[in-house]
C-alpha cells in the first residue's frame, strides 16, 4: 500500500489553498511551506471578536488588531494575498455561547475542538470551497494520510511532543480531504520552527506561543463565566450529602479541581479533597477523596469519525481525554449512537463535556463528547 502524505511537497497537483493565519508563528510557517510547495496560497485572518482590542495582553495571540497586523506582515513576506474575514458572529454563536452553555450545564467544554469543527473546517472551509479554493491550511501539528483509493486518515504528528491531533479529532473525512497541515510530518522542535520563521524573514519568529482560551482576553475563565452567568450561591457537599461550605456558582469548578474550594476544616482523614461532581440542577458541588475521582467507564455522545465509523463490537483502542493528556488503553464500543468506553486502569479527573479522542496506533479514529462517567470504586 502506498501512502502519500498531504504535506504540500508530496502533492502532485498545485492546489488553491486558503491559509488561516492567526498572526502566530506556526500558521505563518505553515502558509510559507504551502506556498513554497507550489500551491497557490491566499492568507486569511479570522476576525473572531466583535470588538477586537488594539494590542495583545499577555501570551495570547489571535484576536487583536496587532495579531491581524502580524498575520498581514507574514503574508507580505511570503508574498501571498491576504484578507481579514469577519467570522465573529459565527464564532460567538457556535463557540462562545456553546462554551458558556456547557459550563452552565455543569460540563467542561473544549472550545478549540468546537472551533475546528464549526469554524475553521466548516464556516471557513465552506466559504473557501465556494470561492474556488481546494483546501484550508492551518499550523496544526497533525498528519493527513491519503491512501491510493482516496481515503483520508488523520494521524498524530510525527513529533509526538507537539502533536495536536486531539483538537482535530472532530474532523470527518470530507473535512480532512480539504485540510492541509504542513507542519504535521516534520520532526522539528518548536525552536526549529522559530528558526525557520527567522530564516524566512517572518517577524513572528519570536512571538510567544498562544495558549489559554482565545476569546477570554485576560485568561480569567472564572471571571468571564461569572460575568456571563452571574453568581449563584450554592452548597459544597461531601459524598454523603453533608454540607461543607458554600460557593458562588457551580460553573466555577472543574471535576478533579483541588484548589480554591475554601473549605474551613480539613477532611476527617486529613487527605485533600477534590471536586467529584457538579450538579447544575441544585447548584451543588460534591467533593471527596482522590480515590473517588477514579473512573472505570464512560459514555460519550455526538461522535465524530475521522473516516469510517468503527466496526461493531468492542475493540481495543487508546484514548486521549485532554489536549495535552497522556494516552491510555481502553476498550470501546459504538452502540445506539453512543460510545461506551471502559478503561484498562482507572482514569482520574474525567469531566462531562470533555472530548474523548480514540486512537488506533497513530491513527485518529474519532471523538465524542463525554456525557456521563462511572466510578471505579463505589461511593462510600
Amino acid at each position, binding site marked *: 500500500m502506498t501512502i502519500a502524505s498531504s504535506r504540500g511537497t508530496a502533492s502532485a497537483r498545485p492546489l488553491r489553498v486558503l491559509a488561516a493565519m492567526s498572526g502566530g508563528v506556526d500558521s505563518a510557517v505553515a502558509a510559507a511551506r504551502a506556498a513554497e510547495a507550489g500551491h497557490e496560497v*491566499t492568507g486569511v485572518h479570522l*476576525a473572531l471578536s466583535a470588538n477586537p482590542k488594539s494590542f495583545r495582553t499577555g501570551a495570547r495571540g489571535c484576536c487583536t*488588531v496587532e495579531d491581524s497586523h502580524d498575520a498581514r506582515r507574514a503574508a507580505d513576506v511570503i508574498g501571498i*494575498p491576504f*484578507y*481579514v*474575514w469577519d467570522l465573529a*458572529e459565527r464564532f460567538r454563536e457556535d463557540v462562545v455561547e456553546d462554551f458558556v452553555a456547557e459550563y452552565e450545564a455543569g460540563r467542561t467544554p473544549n472550545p478549540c475542538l468546537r472551533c475546528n469543527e464549526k469554524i475553521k473546517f466548516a464556516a471557513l472551509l465552506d*466559504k473557501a470551497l465556494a*470561492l474556488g479554493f481546494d483546501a484550508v491550511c492551518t499550523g496544526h501539528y497533525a498528519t493527513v494520510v491519503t491512501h491510493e483509493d482516496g481515503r483520508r486518515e488523520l494521524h498524530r504528528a510525527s513529533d509526538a511532543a507537539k502533536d495536536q491531533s486531539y483538537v482535530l479529532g472532530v474532523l470527518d473525512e470530507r473535512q480532512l480531504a480539504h485540510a492541509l497541515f504542513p507542519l504535521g510530518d516534520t520532526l522539528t522542535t518548536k525552536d526549529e520552527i522559530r528558526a525557520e520563521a527567522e530564516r524566512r524573514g517572518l517577524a513572528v519568529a519570536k512571538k510567544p506561543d498562544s495558549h489559554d482560551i482565545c476569546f477570554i482576553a485576560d485568561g480569567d475563565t472564572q471571571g468571564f463565566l461569572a460575568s456571563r452567568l452571574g453568581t449563584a450561591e450554592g452548597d459544597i457537599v461531601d459524598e454523603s450529602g453533608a454540607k461543607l461550605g458554600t460557593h458562588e456558582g457551580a460553573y466555577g469548578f472543574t471535576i478533579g479541581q483541588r484548589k480554591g474550594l475554601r473549605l474551613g476544616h480539613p477532611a476527617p482523614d486529613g487527605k485533600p479533597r477534590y471536586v467529584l461532581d457538579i450538579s447544575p440542577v441544585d447548584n451543588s458541588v460534591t467533593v471527596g477523596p482522590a480515590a473517588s475521582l477514579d473512573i472505570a467507564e464512560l459514555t460519550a455522545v455526538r461522535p465524530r469519525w475521522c473516516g469510517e465509523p468503527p466496526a461493531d463490537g468492542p475493540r481495543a483502542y487508546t484514548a486521549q481525554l485532554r489536549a495535552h493528556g497522556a494516552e491510555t488503553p481502553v476498550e470501546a464500543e459504538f452502540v445506539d449512537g453512543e460510545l461506551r468506553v471502559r478503561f484498562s486502569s482507572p482514569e482520574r479527573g474525567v469531566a462531562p463535556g470533555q472530548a474523548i479522542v480514540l486512537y488506533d496506533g497513530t491513527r485518529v479514529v474519532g471523538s465524542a463528547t463525554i456525557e456521563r462517567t462511572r466510578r471505579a470504586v463505589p461511593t462510600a
Partner: protein
Amino acid sequence: MADTVHPAYLDHAATTPMWPEAARTMTEQLTVVGNASSLHGAGRRARRTVEESRESVAASLGARPSEVVFTAGGTEADNLAVKGLYWARRGEDARRTRVLASPAEHHAVLDAVEWLAEHEGARLEWLPVDSYGRVRPQALREAIERDPSDVALATVMWANNEIGTVTDVRALAEVAAEFEVPLHSDAVQAFGQLDVSFAASGLAAMAVTGHKIGGPYGVGALLLRREYAPVPLLHGGGQERQVRSGTLDTPAVAAFATAARLAVERREAFVDEVGALREALVAGVRDAVPDAVLNGDPDPGGRLPANAHFSFPGCEGDSLLLLLDAQGIECSTGSACTAGVAQPSHVLLATGTDPESARGTLRFSLGHTSTKADVEALAEAIGPVVDRARSAGLS
C-alpha cells in the same frame, strides 16, 4: 496569480498615480535645502516656493492665497475644520455646542464630530439625507432654525467618496450664511472631477488633498475664509496663520500645486474621457449581472463622473474583492474597514438601504490612467465572480 496579470486598477478614489509633472516638481525640490521659516537665503528660497505654490493652489481652487492652509492631507484638514471651528465658535459663545453633519460623511469628518460629541460636549445632529445620500438645503434650514444661536458649525461633503453623489454645497452655504453659521465641506473627491471654486461656493472651510488629484501623499489643504480662526490641533512654530504649526514640506507642497493646476487645466477633457469609460463600465457590469444595483444619483449632473458603485445582492463584498483581486482587478468595497474587516457601508445605511444589501458592494473608480482595457477586463470577470461569491453567500 495577480502578479502575472497586468492589473486593472479601478480604485483611483483611494489614490491615483501622480502626474509625471508633479513627480518632477517634487524630485527637483527634494534635494534643495531650506526651511521655509528660516530667514536666510536658503529659507527665503523655500519660502518663495511655498508661497508660489500657495498662490497656485489658490488660483486652482478659486480662493485667495491667504485662505490656503497647507496640511498633511485631507484627514487633517477635516479635523482642523471640524474640531478647530467647534472650539473657536464655542469659545466665542458657550451656547454654541450644536454640530450639524451629514451621516454620509467620510470617517475623517464622521469620527471627528463623534469625538466632539463624546469628549467635548457637542450635541451632534445628523442632517437627513435622501436616497442618494444628499442633504437638501431645506433640511439644513430646518435644523439651524430650531435654534440658530446654538449652532457651532455644519459640515456636509461636496461629493460622496463611496457612491459619488454630489451635493449642492453652494445652496447649503447660502442657507448657513443667512444664519452666520460656518459650513465646512470635504471636497477631497470633488476636486479634479467637478468645478470646485472656494469663493463661489460660499463655504467657510473646505478640505482637499494631493494624492487624489495626481499629487503626492501626505499633503493637502484646508481652504479657510479669513474671518475664521479655528483653534489649532497642532501647536508649535505658528506656521500657516498660526493655525497649523510645523515645518512645511516644500517638495510636497510644490508638487501638490503642480497637480492642482493640472487637475483643473485637464478637468474637462478628463471628465469627457472617464465619463465615457464609466458608461462602458456600468453597461458591462449590468450586462453581466442584470440584478446589480447602481447606487447614488443616476443623473450625470448629480454625481462624480469617475465613480460607479454597485450592490450585488446575495454577495459578501470581501468575497467579490478577493475574487477580482485574484484576477488582477483592483477595486474597493467602498466602505471603511475596522481591523481589516469590511463593514456595511454607513453611506448606504444612511440612505435607507438594508444592512444586508449594504455589505455586498463594490466601488469602481476611474482616473487619468484608466483605459478601455481596464473596463473590459472587469466586464469579462464580473459575471462569474458574482456567481461564485453568491454561492459563498453571506457569512
